[in-house]
């Protein structure tokens, strides 16, 4: 149970310490909090493999009286994924957000906000109570908005305000849905809700909560806040925002639709979600192709990649339950979540490094960098392989599992979406790679040290490695899988 406590309290304490302590000590406290939380996340995953689903009833009161925290396989995978990305971001931010490079305000604000964000993510991944999730989401949004604004430019403030409008509207919608649920059932615990008879207002409640969560997940057409926000935040912040933050609200969606209220999800609504996902894949990719700045390309790529995740709803959702392909769709989607997180954070960290060397992230300024920074170029290329779903990579494994599920369920259209999305991703990621390889007179710029370049390389390497050795991930994932997606392989 200590793992639960460290995961929630560790980052919070670290955030407070980083605010209270002066410069160097603040960073040391942050480093200690990062290390402790990483260890706790890995430890919890280990516990889950041996002991199965872990549940902590706060104060010993079982729901509906008390509040329960619960860690199943999905939680463990997401907690470890978050911890890995956060650790890499912390390592990168040590240089990139040092006071003499990023200015005193960003250098001061980054560490508390990063740790708050982490605490919020952990809270979302461990909660099973709809109101607890609301609190986690609020904290998450506020920390994320702060991280966007930290850059201090006019563009960053504008992006942060736009983000705030969407995030607050999303919160309100979600909260309205939660109130309806509480009024109808008298409990907000997901496990209890799953066992209750549906009420008349459930459809409306689910729609409201889903609308709010879609705005926070930046699914097309609610994505408009994402590219400016992720494009103008400092790169280590963008890495967290793009790799982790949309996943939190998506996971709540997954749990709502597949775990808590599977029988209240209509066929049409499931298909609508996947169609919005399809639109996101296409529109995000088309917009990414048109961008002239690397960070915007990577940000629009997130819009597109989020679209893939929504294909799970018609494949694994609905009341039919436990059809043979559902576990494939479930595994594939989680695989995509994890490999996207690793690859996308690697890409943003690389973009930050290149901005330091080249002075900007315009593609025209990045000419010839492949010769100057071969390791970060390799990291970018490997991350691109994952995002385009090419083998061997976690992105390919996820794509293959989802395509197989789509054909097996007779909904081959979603398989074609995956195939076309992969080609489009290759197109928009090819442009920066080709520019990097162009021979340029300006390629005598001083590179960053190998120790700096290796951080994103490890992240990208992990996203590739997931495609080769993922047995462990699937083993953890099978612990406490929603009954809807079955206990099959």
């Amino acid at each position, binding site marked *: 149970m200590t793992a639960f406590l460290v995961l929630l309290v560790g980052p919070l304490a670290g955030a407070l310490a980083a605010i209270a302590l002066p410069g160097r000590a603040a960073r040391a406290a942050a480093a200690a909090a990062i290390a402790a939380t990483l260890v706790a996340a890995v430890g919890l995953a280990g516990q889950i493999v041996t002991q199965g689903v872990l549940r902590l009833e706060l104060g010993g009161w079982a729901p509906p009286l008390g509040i329960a925290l619960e860690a199943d396989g999905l939680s463990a995978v997401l907690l470890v994924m978050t911890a890995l990305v956060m650790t890499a971001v912390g390592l990168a931010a040590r240089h990139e957000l040092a006071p003499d490079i990023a200015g005193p305000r960003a250098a001061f604000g980054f560490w508390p906000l990063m740790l708050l964000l982490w605490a919020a993510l952990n809270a979302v991944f461990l909660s099973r109570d709809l109101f607890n999730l609301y609190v986690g989401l609020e904290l998450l949004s506020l920390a994320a908005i702060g991280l966007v604004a930290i850059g201090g430019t006019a563009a960053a403030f504008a992006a942060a305000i736009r983000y705030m409008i969407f995030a607050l509207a999303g919160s309100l919608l979600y909260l309205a849905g939660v109130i309806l649920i509480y009024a109808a059932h008298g409990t907000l615990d997901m496990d209890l809700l799953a066992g209750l008879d549906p009420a008349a207002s459930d459809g409306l409640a689910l729609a409201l909560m889903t609308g709010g969560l879609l705005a926070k997940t930046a699914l097309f057409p609610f994505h408009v806040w994402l590219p400016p926000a992720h494009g103008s935040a400092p790169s280590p912040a963008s890495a967290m925002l793009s790799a982790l933050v949309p996943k939190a609200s998506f996971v709540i969606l997954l749990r709502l639709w597949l775990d808590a209220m599977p029988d209240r999800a209509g066929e049409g609504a499931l298909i609508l979600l996947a169609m919005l996902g399809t639109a996101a894949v296409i529109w995000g990719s088309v917009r990414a192709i048109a961008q002239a700045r690397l960070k915007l390309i990577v940000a629009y790529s997130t819009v597109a990649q989020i679209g893939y995740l929504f294909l799970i709803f018609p494949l694994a959702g609905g009341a039919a339950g436990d059809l043979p392909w559902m*576990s*494939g769709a479930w*595994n594939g989607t989680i*695989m995509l979540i994890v490999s996207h997180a690793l690859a996308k954070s690697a890409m943003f960290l690389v973009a930050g490094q290149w901005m330091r060397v080249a002075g900007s992230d315009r593609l025209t300024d990045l000419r010839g960098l*492949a*010769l100057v920074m*071969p390791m970060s170029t*390799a990291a970018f290329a490997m991350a691109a*392989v994952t995002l*385009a779903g*090419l*083998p*061997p990579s976690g992105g*390919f*494994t996820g794509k*293959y*599992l989802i*395509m*197989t599920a789509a*054909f*097996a369920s007779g909904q*081959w259209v979603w*398989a*074609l979406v995956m*195939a*076309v999305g*992969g*080609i489009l991703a*290759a197109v928009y990621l*090819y442009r920066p790679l*080709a520019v990097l*390889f*162009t*021979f340029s007179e300006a390629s005598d710029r001083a590179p960053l040290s190998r120790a700096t370049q290796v951080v994103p390389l490890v992240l990208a390497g992990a996203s590739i490695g997931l*495609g*080769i*050795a*993922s*047995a462990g991930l*699937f083993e953890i994932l099978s612990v406490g899988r929603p009954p809807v997606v079955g206990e099959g*392989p």
Partner: protein
Amino acid sequence: MTAILPLLLLLTSLVPATVTFFLDQESYRLRNTLNLGGAVVKVGLIVMMLLAVAGGASYETSIPLAPGLELLLRIDTLALMFVSLSAFLWLLTTVYAIAYFGRKREQSRFFGFFGLCVASTTGIALSGSLVTFFIFFELLTLSTWPLVAHKQDRPSLTAARTYLAYALPCSAALLVAIVWLQNAVGPVIFAQPPDLSQVDPATLRAIFALFIIGMGMKAAIVPLHGWLPLAMAAPAPVSALLHAVAVVKAGAFGVIRVVHDVFGVDTMSELGLGQPLAALASVTILWGSIRALQQTEIKKRLAFSTVSQVSYIILGAALASPLGLIGGLAHLVHQGLMKITLFFCAGIYDERAGVRAIAGLNGLGPRMPWTSTCFSLAAIGMIGLPPLAGFVTKIYLGLGSLQAGAPWVLAVLGASTLLNAAYFLPMLYRLWFADPAPDAAGDEAVPALVVPAVIAAMGALGAGMLAASAVSPLGWATLIVESEVAP
């Protein structure tokens, strides 16, 4: 030991490649030792296995990747044929490349991707299932891109971009084909051909078409061949490997697997798929030769010649007769030996005499006798004159077409031979009989460039002269067809 042999074979290329990426440009000796060492160990392993596999042994390694997704490596006679070719030519090309690059820049990147490319080819050869094949097929696409783009100038980058523009959509088609087929019949393992009788014929035809698009792009089947002549912008060792064994052969090998180990000869003829594929291959054979005639650059002409020659292999597979398949399989090796010789020589002409245009070949023969002799031998083999390897292929393809009841193929073979002669003989004439230009220079004082060419040419000569023996490519192809494919 036997269970990890396939993995070991893969690692002999993969490990040197991975290590090479992290070496400094200056560590010439370590890098060369690593790559040559890997190549030698690999050839050794293969020689060790040849006898056992000829006796009917097979080795299998299986690694689970995800629920329902497994990496299956298997060594059988067909796999071993392709892997021996690639290992042997990798060794030759490594020697050649070390001499070719000398002290040029970015060598760690080059040799790293070069090794990765060979590892992918090995993986393709050893693939025991369709999914495994696809994984290595894509890895090959990705590892070839930096090799084509290596010079980082405009033509190279254009060529590299065009290559991906062809490769990625076609591989998406291939993936759809694989998932679609597996949805109908379960995981496809080459050693146990799937039962297709329950699947509706229209679906099977559509899947087959997607397969041919996916594989045919790499085999440069018309109209998916446009990337290959552009890829000439790559350094000479890359062109040599690309044309002889790595990319185009991977495509042709894939077609053979699909035709014989996935669909099977009987299903092919029931669905009426053999004749259209043979026709497509014939069009490619003729079109490649006609375009080759029009080229004025040596490497471009050779590239279009590849387009044409690789389709002999496809033709052999499509004919669906034992003799035709033997011819096609043998040509997989024969074309590799001859074409790599030609490209080695073209690289030597470029490096040592500054000659890229066909007109520049005038009188080079006496000046560069070793290179020119090799070039001439390989060209004569390509035309299909006895006693060289190409002759053997054409005989078997011809007999195979009669066996399959498709005598029109003879006309295609005849026309192609005439066209081959029409574009190769003028080059030979220029080499040996035309007067040299007054300012022409050229020598062949770099043995590390010339020796690989000589060895490859001897291979092509030997494959033809010793065709009747059991150890020749033809003998091995006969063994494959007798042991596996034919009932």
